[in-house]
């Protein structure tokens, strides 16, 4: 298993290099720095000097991949690819277009993102699993049917409507919590309740239906029938056997998103005005702040790869029969 993990860890930089090459191609080859400068400077009749100055300010005045003018190793390192893409492996993200250091910004914004993403994740898992288990307990009945219909209907509503509707009902009509904003310390909870609850509700339909099929499959297996035949009540059978074994695919399925919780949620953060990484990304997209988007792509892929490795590990942890090779 140790060898397997080492191999996976060695594979990770290779994937990240691929990600980097792809973003590099997107950001610098499809559109040259000149195009970008012309767009950022706006006016149709920009002077070549203005473009040159813009490029020098941001360090785009170098060759893309190979610097023929420099000698030795510098011909590879004194390039845009090395400066802008490879430096990210050392978590050196450079500066955003507004001059702020991206790494510092990410560190300060991680907290609010986690404050909304972690409760949504844990509460959401708990609520959906409970709901799915409830449907399985009443399986084949009218309640089960209605529950599945409800799930499909909830799946068919865009997440935007949950947020808009929730803000309107809870904040505007009932005046229970502020519509948006964020505060430090305990004060933050006031602002976090609504996004978390809406996040849980918005994700309920799809996951609950999926979990229900997993539990149903488990509940039909022979060992559960044996347990019932031995005299276990339906509740005992559900909680001791079905829940335990059904959680294996569920947990291993959700492990992959755990590291990505750092990234926060794009939509709800910007709707609720929470200064996390999600709203940072959205702002960067709207302001066409490419260094920030590049940095977020890199971090996002890094966390996803971490999630994949964790998924593999979690298989062996929850199910001792699985052996990684």
């Amino acid at each position, binding site marked *: 298993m140790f060898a397997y993990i080492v191999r996976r860890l060695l594979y990770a930089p290779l994937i990240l290099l691929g990600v980097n090459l792809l973003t590099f191609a997107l950001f610098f080859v499809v559109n040259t720095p000149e195009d970008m400068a012309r*767009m950022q400077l706006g006016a149709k009749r920009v002077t070549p000097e203005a473009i040159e100055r813009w490029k020098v300010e941001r360090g785009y005045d170098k060759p893309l991949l190979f610097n023929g003018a420099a000698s030795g190793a510098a011909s590879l390192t004194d390039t845009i690819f090395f400066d802008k893409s490879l430096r990210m492996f050392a978590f050196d993200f450079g500066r955003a277009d507004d001059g702020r250091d991206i790494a510092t910004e990410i560190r300060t914004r991680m907290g609010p993102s986690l404050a909304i993403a972690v409760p949504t994740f844990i509460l959401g898992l708990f609520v959906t699993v409970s709901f799915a288990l409830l449907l399985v307990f009443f399986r084949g009945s009218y309640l089960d049917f209605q529950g599945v219909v409800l799930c499909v209907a909830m799946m068919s509503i*865009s997440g935007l409507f949950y947020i808009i509707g929730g803000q309107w009902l809870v904040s505007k009509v009932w005046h229970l919590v502020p519509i948006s904003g964020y505060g430090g310390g305990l004060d933050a909870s006031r602002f976090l309740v609504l996004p978390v609850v809406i996040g849980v509700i918005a994700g309920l339909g799809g996951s609950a239906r999926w979990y229900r099929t997993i539990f149903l499959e488990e509940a039909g297996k022979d060992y559960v029938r044996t347990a019932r035949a031995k005299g276990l009540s339906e509740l005992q059978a559900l909680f001791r056997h079905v829940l335990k074994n059904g959680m294996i695919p569920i947990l291993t399925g959700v492990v992959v998103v755990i590291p990505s919780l750092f990234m926060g949620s794009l*939509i709800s953060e910007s709707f609720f005005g929470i200064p996390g990484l999600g709203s940072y990304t959205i702002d960067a997209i709207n302001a066409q702040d490419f260094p920030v988007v590049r940095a977020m*792509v890199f971090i996002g892929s890094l966390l996803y790869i971490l999630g994949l490795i964790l998924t593999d590990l979690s298989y062996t942890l929850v199910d001792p029969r699985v052996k990684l090779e």
Partner: protein
Amino acid sequence: MIDVQPVFLWTDLLLFGLIACIVLAAWRARRSEPMRAAWRRVGESTVGMTSLTILVLFLVVGLLDSLHYRPYLPPAKDGKVTADRGPLSTEVRSALDALAEPLRSRTEKTYSAPLAYVLFAKQTIEKSDGTQQREFPRLKFGGAGLQYPEEDHTGDVLGRIGLGLALAAGAWCLLAGGLVQVVAMSRKVPFGAAWRAVWRGKGGLAWRAVLVTLGLVFLLAGPVAVLAGEYHVFGTDKVGQDVLFLTLKSIRTALVIGTLTTLVTLPLAVALGIMAGYMGGWVDDVIQYVYTVLNSIPGVLLIAAAVLMMQVVIDTHPHWFETAAERADARLLALCLILGMTSWTGLCRLLRGETLKLRELEYVQAARAFGVSTARILSRHVLPNLMHLVLIALVMDFSGLVLAEAVLSYVGIGVDPNTVSFGTMINAARMELAREPMVWWSLMSAFIFMFVLVLAANLFADVVRDAFDPRAS
């Protein structure tokens, strides 16, 4: 004879190409017994036929909106021009625009509530005697025929609803009669017997579900259609456009995104998936590496990066596009491609796994032993056995893509701001709930249409998956 020049946008061609593919596939499926059996299972399911009916209705609206043309402007009046028609208009219209011409052209000044005859906001109006007064001004078009709106409005609306219901009932009877007649002729039974069989849901496809769904849709659409002749049934938006019209226009965008996205990347996913699964070795390694890389970039960010870059390309090459509609269409198609780039990996992995299994089956090994070429094995033995997965992926992805479009347009990386879509509608309507008094109608009509479309797609996808997936039963 209306003198127009047809315009074929890329998405139009692809959409009609898709319809042609479906017809062709249906033709081929008739010959294959398992395919016929699977489709019969879909046809016998009440849910399947109900959702299919709804989807077909949406498709009709979307296709009408895909027949584009450019009208000629009226000839110049100064007498110098001898041609009998003027230059081409730069505005691209569709058959739907022509059918709903009153809805398109009758724009008010600003917001007005559904079925209203006055504007939503008070304005200062100068009276004929010179005094000024703040009141709700009458709409230019909504309820313009009413002479005494205070007294006549309710009666007029109710009368139109009644007329609409009557027309709907009549139309439904005609349609139902025609449909039952077709059933009767195909089964060679008298009309009455066919009617009873359909109504009791006996034998064959679930025609009763189709008729009931159509009946309900007609009962809703009839009054709306009659009312739309005089009023703005779903009100008007900020710049006075009819919300019902905007919602109908959104359908095409949703359909294009939902279907073309999977379609344009389908060849890639199928080819790479089969290659990786069948050939193995370094080919497999390379393909797996490519889709792991694509997969590991968070979807929204990859889309954002690609859309931002594409926007720069479009902005720096304005001469590529003759009209604004063509530019918007290029962006829509590019969005489909980009969305497809992030979603083909799932299907590719699925096909790779299935091909790995198929490769080891006896009949494939036998074919190989007989010296059948690889290309022939793939096309005759492997590909047909993967088609059900492709079909399931196509229908399962649809609803997710329609929902994704709304979110992306909100983030600002979706369709062109000039393209009407559910996303742009929601985005524009977002701040309207905060107004006092509240403007709710744009959001509501976008919600209703989007919900019905996605719900129908979800239900249909479930039925198709159950019918085609051999493991499901």
